[in-house]
């Protein structure tokens, strides 16, 4: 019998039904992008309120689409970290209520490990451990090494902005809407990625696997609004496209450089990738090229498994198979853990 997975870490309210064979029987995602578009970013209060309104209908829809009754659910899984605390607590409360009323096991899983586990759903046994994991999204830019699906060891992460956050903020500087990623990608198609020499902070520092995007964002700001000027310049369409293309190129190269370095340092030849920024086609193809150069297998799931979803909550089966079951004391943890393992 299948499990119900619930995901409310940030924008998306999502629920999925997954069998122990890791077959996705249903996967429902209600995106809040439209609500947030007005604010050029995720608005947490709106996020929480929308989660409250949507969580039960979404769960009902997931069970209906899977063709099962709630009573057939064998376990309830929920993403408990990291994310917005208000949003996390709504998913967690729903999961606890359902698990305790059905008297089935409750499992708390890590949202980032689940993003990487989406590769198991998309590629099955092609995913062999140890592996390197890259999560690139609006809230995260992190590299991990993994010896098992549920064990994450941080190799590095952003020291300032997440890459998706940089896309959103640069989009805002260029007068584009939210979410910024798709709009920058579209605008960049008409631009020359070599037109502006923008910084790639940390990208060439081979001593660490960390990322930095704040300096890149500021450099774009200087092009739009030079330091000594009183006002921002009004850019032509071509200037905006060139700037978007140059920014995208710098951001993608910064990410890819560290994945390459992680392959060299660990010697691992499997890279799992997750997070909404992998929707970016320039990043996808740059990662694929990197894989060819390093003879590494780069696993990038299809888009619907890269952005936030609950199907990746299939990782809960790994917890169940290891007898890692939670109780009703289970708590949400908003912050990302920062302890690093030394890389030999």
């Amino acid at each position: 019998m299948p499990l119900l997975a619930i995901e409310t870490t940030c924008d998306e309210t999502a629920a999925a039904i997954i069998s122990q064979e890791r077959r996705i029987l249903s996967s429902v995602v209600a995106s809040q992008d439209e609500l947030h578009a007005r604010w050029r970013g995720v608005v947490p209060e709106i996020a929480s309120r929308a989660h409250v309104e949507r969580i039960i209908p979404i769960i009902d829809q997931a069970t209906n689409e899977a063709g099962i009754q709630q009573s057939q659910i064998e376990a309830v899984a929920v993403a408990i970290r990291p994310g917005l605390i208000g949003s996390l607590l709504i998913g967690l409360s729903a999961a606890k209520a359902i698990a305790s009323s059905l008297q089935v096991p409750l499992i708390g899983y890590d949202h980032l490990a689940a993003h990487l586990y989406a590769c198991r759903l998309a590629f099955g046994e092609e995913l062999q451990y140890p592996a390197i994991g890259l999560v690139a999204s609006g809230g995260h830019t992190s590299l991990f090494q993994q010896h098992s699906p549920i064990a994450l060891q941080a190799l590095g992460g952003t020291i300032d902005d997440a890459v998706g956050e940089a896309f959103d903020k640069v989009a805002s500087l260029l007068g584009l809407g939210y979410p910024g990623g798709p709009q920058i990608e579209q605008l960049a198609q008409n631009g020359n990625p070599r037109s502006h020499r923008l910084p790639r902070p940390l990208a060439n520092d081979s001593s660490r696997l960390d990322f930095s995007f704040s300096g890149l964002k500021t450099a774009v700001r200087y092009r739009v609004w030079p330091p000594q000027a009183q006002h921002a310049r009004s850019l032509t369409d071509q200037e905006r496209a060139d700037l978007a293309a140059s920014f995208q190129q710098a951001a993608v190269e910064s990410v890819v450089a560290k994945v390459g370095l992680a392959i060299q340092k660990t010697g691992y030849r499997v890279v799992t990738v997750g997070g909404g920024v992998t929707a970016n086609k320039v990043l996808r193809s740059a990662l694929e090229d990197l894989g060819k150069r390093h003879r590494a297998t780069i696993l990038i799931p299809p888009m619907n498994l890269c952005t936030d979803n609950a199907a990746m909550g299939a990782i809960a089966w790994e917890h169940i198979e290891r007898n890692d079951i939670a109780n009703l004391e289970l708590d949400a943890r908003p912050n990302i853990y920062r302890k690093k393992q030394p890389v030999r």
Partner: protein
Amino acid sequence: MSSNESVESSRTVTCEIKNLDDLHQLASRIVKHLPQSALVTLQGELGAGKTTFVKAIADSVEIDPAHVTSPTFNLITIHESPENTIRLVHADMYRVTDPDELIETGWDTALVVPSEYRCWAFVEWPQKIASALPAHRLSITLKVTGESSRQLTIKGTGTNYEQIPMLIMQSS
């Protein structure tokens, strides 16, 4: 700006910093004069260096600045100094549109600390929650003056803060 601010007395100083070294030097002077429990707001455009400023503060109290990342996504992050004597609350109101949304950040619980602690809250984009902010605070405004240079305006409002701008300028 909150309406009751005008009745509080305040002092303002302005300093020009040429580069990151200057910023770190200034940060180490500021932390010497912060009260045991302090509220500091940071205003400035995208790229003005608000998070970079908090990194410099963190560095001067031996919190790893690499761990001080933009709180835009999670709204609030909490850092503790090595001996757990200083709690640094780093908040970002960029995405907040209504002061009522502050409850989402866990802001109130973050500021409750044992009395032997020092607890300093640095709030980016305070203008988003202006009406919910106490008038007594240190308000820092960062202005871009060049590729690496910034002008910082430091304003102390209220009894515990009024003297701080002058003390910062006098100390070395």
